């Protein structure tokens, strides 16, 4: 007896690829971009990979099951795979130049304060880039995209206490790198 196929509402005529992409990007694009950017050397690469995430998501939309995970969790899992794939094949660049931080959001009122903030961010990200890949990943998820540890646990398929433990250990290692 044939197995009935349940139509996925995301593949309905009311959700063409363009609309789906726009909807997901508006809700989660900034978070995905910032998460990727946290671990990438330039805005250009972050834009490339962000595009890959959403184009992959649209192509795989019929496999998305909202009963199993939220769109955000699903998109971040795709982003994680895209990032891992990229980092596996690219040489790492711990050096973060100030010129590469043009996409950094800053609320500092003066140019001098904005420059100081850029310098501080470059220092922090250069230190993050020296950590083991698992530390970079958990720091990127937690801080790159404003996810709380519960969200991070869902994306990584871990329990929340385990995420907290891993995060604090990663921060401990980061602090040692930053220590004068």
């Amino acid at each position, binding site marked *: 007896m044939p197995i009935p196929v349940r139509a996925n509402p995301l593949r309905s005529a009311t959700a063409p*690829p*363009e*609309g*789906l*992409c*726009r909807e997901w*990007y*508006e809700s989660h*694009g*900034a978070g995905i*971009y*910032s998460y990727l*950017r*946290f671990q990438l*050397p*330039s*805005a*250009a690469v*972050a*834009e*490339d990979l*962000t*595009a*890959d*995430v*959403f*184009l*992959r998501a*649209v*192509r795989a939309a019929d496999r998305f099951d909202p009963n199993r995970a939220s769109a955000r969790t699903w998109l971040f899992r795709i982003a994680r*795979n895209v990032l891992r*794939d990229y980092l596996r094949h*690219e*040489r790492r*660049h711990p*050096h*973060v*130049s100030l*010129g*590469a931080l*043009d*996409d*950094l*959001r800053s609320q500092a009122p003066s140019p001098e304060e904005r420059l100081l903030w850029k310098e*501080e*961010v470059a220092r*922090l*990200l250069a230190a993050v880039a020296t950590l083991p890949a698992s530390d970079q990943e958990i*720091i990127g998820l937690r*801080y*790159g995209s*404003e996810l*709380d*540890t519960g969200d991070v646990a869902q994306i990584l398929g871990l329990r929340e206490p385990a995420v*907290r433990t891993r995060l*604090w250990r990663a*921060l*401990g290692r980061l*602090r040692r790198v*930053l220590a004068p």
Partner: protein
Amino acid sequence: MSEAPEDFRDLDRSLRAIRFEPPASFGAELAGRAARGEAPRPPRRPGPGRALLATAALVAGGAAVALGRPIISRSLPVTIDRCCYDLDGGGAADDGVRIVAKRDAEVRRLWVYEDRDGSRDLSPPDVVRLRRGAAPSLAEGGSAGLIALRRCCLDFDGGGPDDDGLLVIGVPPDRVLMAAIYERRARAPDAAHSHSRLR
């Protein structure tokens, strides 16, 4: 309220304050790419080493030359038409670029246009914002309100890989003063050194 232990409060606060923003028009550009059915780049698979690939390419090239067959004719110009992005700063992703180039080498002609008829390529009803020949140059038009827009990365020169960027300088919402392409170098350490000269 921070959930970090006391020891990490300062570090936690600093990291939480870091936020990056994609370009404002990036969402519209992505939606356009999805509408065109553009595929993401395929995941890279571990393959044979570079030395092995280089050896194979040399052997194949040598064999082809020995047989008197041209491998690929790369001297013929190709025409690439990419639409639709926000290239004039007007806010709508309705602009395109048509490039006639020697494959993976120099640009011979380039148009930036507004896709008025929704055909997604350069056609008679469209408004041409910039038309140039082989060398990029900045058209006259004053410097007030200049913006630079960058679109990366696609194949803008027919070379094959999506490794070219497009740089457009203009005055919103509808003036385009310069457009050029560049090739991104994947292994450059930062954006300042990540591309070749403008073409």
